[in-house]
């Protein structure tokens, strides 16, 4: 019995490790290539570890494009999107979940229908709107539409609806107004939802590609993802440079992920299965 069990466990581990190897290897390769010289990266047969270890690729890409600024842009817009969207959607979600007001169902149905519509539908008009507002090539354009989310509202509403009504009823009778109830009672109780949504939005804002690609073309108003595609165009011949760009784009999310693993994974379960 025990022997069988141990053998079974071993097989399970071997298979899983194989999978992990395949999963993790590209990241390893990304890092290794980034520390090679362009010529060495094109060696046939490929070398594994850099024979001549150099961080030249990293300094080069900071020369080509204002990567420091681009990095800050991405951090800045990600934070604003997360805080903004969570705040705006949570506020609205509470009202939809707990207050009966005229027009509530009608408005909520419209919000739900936005959820059903694929993103491409909005893209061209959003682009033209931003152009009309004179916001092309600004940081604001990068985060503005992302502050308003039907999904975020829907998610937070689910969380609010799972809370017992008695809490509010007691507070209302005591004479509290809605803002106080929201602040002091409801908000702390939906913390898991806020965490889940924040992580979801952070991931989206950091990794977003198409919208920032369309909206900004000035090098110092770019986000990381479109900047990478420029590296591929302009540095078609410098593979370590491309990989260096990829490494720095990936590291923050990876670090965040390792610190908040549990929340990331719980968040997926929340935003996934419940939805």
């Amino acid at each position, binding site marked *: 019995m025990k022997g069988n069990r141990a053998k079974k466990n071993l097989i399970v581990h071997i298979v899983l490790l194989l999978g992990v190897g395949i999963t993790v290897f590209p990241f390893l390769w990304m890092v290794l290539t980034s520390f090679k010289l362009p010529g060495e990266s094109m060696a046939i047969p490929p070398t594994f570890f850099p024979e001549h270890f150099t961080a030249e690729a990293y300094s080069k890409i900071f020369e080509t494009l204002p990567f420091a600024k681009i990095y800050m842009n991405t951090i800045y817009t990600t934070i604003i999107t997360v805080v903004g969207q969570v705040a705006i959607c949570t506020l609205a979600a509470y009202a939809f979940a707990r207050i009966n007001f005229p027009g509530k169902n009608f408005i909520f149905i419209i919000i739900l229908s*936005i959820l059903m519509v694929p993103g491409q*539908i909005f893209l061209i008009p959003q682009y033209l709107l931003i152009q009309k507002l004179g916001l092309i090539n600004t940081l604001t354009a990068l985060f503005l539409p992302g502050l308003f989310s*039907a999904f975020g509202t829907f998610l937070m509403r689910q969380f609010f609806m799972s809370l017992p009504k008695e809490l509010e009823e007691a507070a209302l009778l*005591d004479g509290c107004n809605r803002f106080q109830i929201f602040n002091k009672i409801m908000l702390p109780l939906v913390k898991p939802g806020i965490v889940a949504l924040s992580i979801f939005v952070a991931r989206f804002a950091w990794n977003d590609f198409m919208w920032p690609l369309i909206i900004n073309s000035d090098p110092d108003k770019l986000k990381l993802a479109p900047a990478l*595609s420029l590296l*591929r165009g302009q540095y078609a011949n410098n593979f370590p440079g491309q990989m260096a760009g990829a490494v720095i784009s990936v590291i923050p999310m990876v670090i965040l992920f390792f610190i908040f*693993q549990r929340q990331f994974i719980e968040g997926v379960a929340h935003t*996934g299965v419940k939805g």
Partner: protein
Amino acid sequence: MSGKNDSSKVYSYKEKNGKRQRNDWIAAYIFIAPLVIGLAAFYVWPFIQNVWFSFNDVNKFNVATFNGLDNYKKLFSDPALWGALWNTVKYIIIVVPISIFLSIVVAALLNASIKGKSIYRTLYFLPTVTMPVAVSLTWRWIFNGDYGLFNEFLGLFGMKGHAWLGDANTALYMIMIVAVWSGIGYNVIILLAGMQGISRSYYEAAAIDGASSVRQFFKITIPLVSPSIFFILITGMIGAFQVFDSIFMMVGPENPIYPKVLTMNALFYRNAFETGYKGYASAISMFMFVIIMIITVIQLIGQKKWVHYD
């Protein structure tokens, strides 16, 4: 906050309720105002505009000229559109089942009581968290026909390398490989959550009845995680319509085969922002909307047959 009402402030019951209700409504409107204004400006109105644009020709300088059903007529006769649709279907047919299969295997293995579960989970999830364009760039390099590691690897088994991303016949499949690779972690988490929600008593009862673990897996586990499988199926199918990053980064507009490997979203982007046919692109987006709706409806009806809810 609390405290007894001063007699001088006593309102009639009706008035008090009426006033409170009105205050409630005002509070509610304040709560929803930012969201509603924002959604109206950036989503509702754009939706209407998009429908309008689909009946117009919109040129490079954004001047719109009404052209009736021309864009829609073009939709049906455009080989590029049907090519992209077919590419998207191919993508779904290959990526989704393989993803589901592999994720079930990994989730099942992880669900067994073994050590290090959370480490495995974390590592498998890595591709999902990381920037798709960065990951695509790396895979593009790995698949490079002349200098890439993939061909070197194949060489170990005596297989000859190929210019995978330069050949219209193979490029899309490489993109699909990357899609499966990056999606496993996410699916595993969903499935694990479903598996862990299955009560032990089912398994115990089956074990008593003499069912092997394999049989238990197929008769208990799979049916009871079918809601999660359904979720992955639907998000996978809709996700195929959203694919863009990997196609743009792994093949890209400078590559001559690019027009042939487009999926629907990439085709939309190309028409809207590369070749500058914004009106036609709007029509494409409407078309995508309709198809996604149809898929969702079919799935929702179909799931009644095979998804097992507690």
